[in-house]
C-alpha cells in the first residue's frame, strides 16, 4: 500500500515538475516584456535595469527557474499586473466558484451517464440506446459556447425562467448577505440558513451546470456502454445467467463492478474536460471563477495572472488524477496482492 502510494506520488511530482517547466518557459516567451508592462511608455535605461533586477530577469535562466520553483513552493504565484495584488489571492478568491460548478456538473454526469450507459448496453438497439447513441454523436460535435448561448436564449430570453449570467442576484448581496466560508455558495447559504440566497445561487447555477453536463454526458454514457458490452460477453457473466442469478444483481453487482476501474479513469478524464469546458462556460455566463478569470486576464495582458490560474487548474486536475489512482487501489484487489 505505502509503496503504491509513494510510487503514485513520485509520478505526480515528476509530472508537476514538467508542468512547471512548461509554464516557466511560457512565461519567458511572453510578447512584450513584463518590464515594459510594469513601467509603461518611455522608461529610462536605469528604470528598465532596476525593474529587471527586481523581477530577477537579469539572472541566468537556470537560476531564474530555481527561483521560480522556490517562489511557488512558498505559495508565491507572482503579482497581478492589473491589480498589483498577489495572484494567489486572486486565484483563491475564485477557485470556489469553479469547483462548485465543476463538482456539481461531475455529480450529474456520473448519476445520469452511468445508468444510461448500463441500460444502453443491456438493451442494445432499444429506444434508450438509440437516443443515447444519437445524442453521443451529436453531443460531441456541438460547440460549448453555442450550447451555452442557446440555453441563455431559451431560458432567459424567451421563457425568462432563469437568470442570464452571474452567480447571485445583485439584490441578494444587499438584502440577504451571507458569510463565505467554503466558497461553495450552496453550502454557505445553507449554513447561514439564508433561503433567498440559496434559491438565487441555485437558479444561477442551473444553466452553466446544464451546459457542462450536456457536453460531457455523451462521453461518459458511451464509454460506460462499451465497457458494459465487453464485460457482459465474459464467460463468468454468462455462467451467472445460466445459474439463474437475478439479472439486476448480474448487471449492477457483477458487471458494473468489473467496469469500475475504467470508469474511474473516465471520471478523471471527464473532470479535465469539465475544467477545460469551464473556461468557455464561465466566460459566457460571466461566472466569477478561474476559467473566466483566465480569459479576462488574457484580454488585459495580465500574464502572471494567466499563468497562475493555469497552474492551479492543472494542479487540480493532477490531484484529481492522483485520487483516481489511489482509488484504483481500493477498487482493484489485484493491486493489493502485488
Amino acid at each position: 500500500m505505502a509503496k503504491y502510494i509513494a510510487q503514485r506520488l513520485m509520478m505526480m511530482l515528476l509530472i508537476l515538475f514538467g508542468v512547471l517547466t512548461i509554464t516557466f518557459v511560457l512565461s519567458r516567451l511572453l510578447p512584450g516584456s513584463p518590464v515594459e508592462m510594469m513601467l509603461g511608455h518611455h522608461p529610462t535605461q536605469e528604470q528598465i535595469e532596476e525593474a529587471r533586477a527586481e523581477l530577477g530577469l537579469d539572472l541566468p535562466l537556470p537560476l531564474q527557474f530555481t527561483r521560480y520553483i522556490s517562489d511557488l513552493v512558498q505559495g508565491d504565484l507572482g503579482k497581478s499586473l492589473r491589480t498589483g495584488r498577489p495572484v494567489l489571492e486572486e486565484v483563491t478568491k475564485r477557485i470556489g466558484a469553479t469547483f462548485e460548478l465543476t463538482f456539481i456538473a461531475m455529480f450529474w454526469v456520473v448519476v445520469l451517464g452511468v445508468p444510461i450507459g448500463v441500460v444502453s448496453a443491456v438493451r442494445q438497439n432499444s429506444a434508450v440506446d438509440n437516443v443515447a447513441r444519437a445524442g453521443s454523436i451529436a453531443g460531441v460535435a456541438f460547440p460549448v459556447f453555442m450550447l451555452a448561448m442557446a440555453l441563455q436564449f431559451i431560458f432567459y430570453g424567451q421563457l425568462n425562467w432563469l437568470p442570464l449570467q452571474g452567480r447571485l442576484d445583485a439584490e441578494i448581496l444587499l438584502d440577504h448577505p451571507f458569510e463565505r466560508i467554503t466558497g461553495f455558495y450552496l453550502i454557505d447559504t445553507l449554513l447561514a440558513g439564508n433561503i433567498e440566497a440559496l434559491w438565487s445561487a441555485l437558479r444561477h447555477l442551473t444553466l452553466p451546470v446544464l451546459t457542462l453536463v450536456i457536453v460531457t454526458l455523451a462521453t461518459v454514457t458511451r464509454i460506460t456502454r462499451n465497457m458494459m458490452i465487453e464485460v457482459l460477453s465474459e464467460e463468468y457473466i454468462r455462467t451467472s445467467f445460466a445459474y439463474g442469478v437475478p439479472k439486476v444483481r448480474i448487471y449492477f453487482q457483477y458487471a458494473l463492478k468489473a467496469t469500475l476501474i475504467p470508469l474511474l479513469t473516465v471520471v478523471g478524464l471527464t473532470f479535465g474536460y469539465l475544467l477545460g469546458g469551464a473556461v468557455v462556460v464561465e466566460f459566457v455566463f460571466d461566472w466569477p471563477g478561474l476559467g473566466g478569470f483566465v480569459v479576462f486576464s488574457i484580454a488585459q495582458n495580465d500574464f502572471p495572472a494567466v499563468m497562475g490560474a493555469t497552474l492551479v487548474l492543472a494542479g487540480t486536475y493532477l490531484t484529481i488524477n492522483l485520487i483516481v489512482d489511489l482509488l484504483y487501489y481500493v477498487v482493484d484487489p489485484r493491486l493489493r496482492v502485488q
Partner: protein
Amino acid sequence: MSTSMITKTNTSTSNSNLSISVQSPAAIWRIKTWAFICENKLFTIGVLLLLLIVFAAIFAPWIAPYDPAKIAFSSKLMPPNVEHWMGTDRFGRDIFSRVLYGARTSLVIGFAVTLLAMLIGIPFGLISGYFGGRVDSWLMRISDVFLAFPPLLLPIAITAALGSGLTNAMIALAVSWFPWYARIMRGAVVRIRSEPFIDAARAMGVSKSKIMLRHVLPNSTTPVIVQGSMDFGYTILAAASLSFIGLGAKPPMMEWGLMAASSRSQFLDNPWTVLFPGLAIFLLVLAANLAGDGLRDVLDPKQGGH
C-alpha cells in the same frame, strides 16, 4: 468517437455473392458500392456532408450572394428573409456569405492543426518506440506532462504566451495535441519492431535510421492517420472555442467562432447572428466525426470500440 457499433464493415460483400453469376463486372461493382453505402449509412452521410462543405468553401466566391465584408448599415440585423437567407449582422453584412467563407478558415485550421500535430507526434513516437528503454520512458514522461493539463487550457496558455492570433492558436493546438499521436505511433512501432522482417533487416546490417525510416515508419502510420481523421472535427471545435474567447481569429477574418463571439452582445434579440455560425460548426464537426469513425472502421477495424 465510436460508431463502430452502428456501422459494421466486412459484410459488404455478402449481399453481392448471390448475383455474381448473372451480373457483368460493372454491375457487380455497382452492387458492391451500394451494399457498402447501405452498410455504412452514417459514414456515407458524413462523407457527403463533408464534400458539400468542401465544395461550398472552394466555390464560396461564386456561391455567395453578397460580398461577405460589405458593410451596409441600412440593412443591419435583418432576420432571415428571401434576400438574406441567414439574415444580416450588426454591420449589415450577409451572414450566409460569411458562413460560406468561414468554411474555408475552419477547413484550413482542421487540416493544418492535425497535420502539424502528426508531424511532431510521429517522429516522437517513432524514436520512443524504436529505441525503447530510457529514451522511451523519458519521451513518454514528456508527453504525459502535456496531457496533464485540462484540455483547452494548455492551448489557451500557449496562445496567451505567443500572442493571440489564428496562426499562434493553431501552433498552440498542435503542440497540445501531439502527445496523442506520439503515443499511438509508439504503440504501433513497438508492435512492428519485433516483426521478423525487421530482425532480418537488422541481421543484414541495415543502419538503424534506414530501418526506422524505410521499414518501421511506413508500416506503423495507419493508426495515427486514422486517429487524425477522427480528431479533425475536434481541432476545428477547439479552434472555434479559442476564437470565441478572443485568442484565435481576429477581425476582419471570417471564422465561425469569431462570428458568434462578435454577435454575443445582441444575440438575445437577434438569435440568427449566433445560430447560423454555430450550426455551421456543428455540421462540419459532425460530418468530420462521422467520416472519421467510418474511416477507422474501414482502415483499422481492430481499433474500434474502446
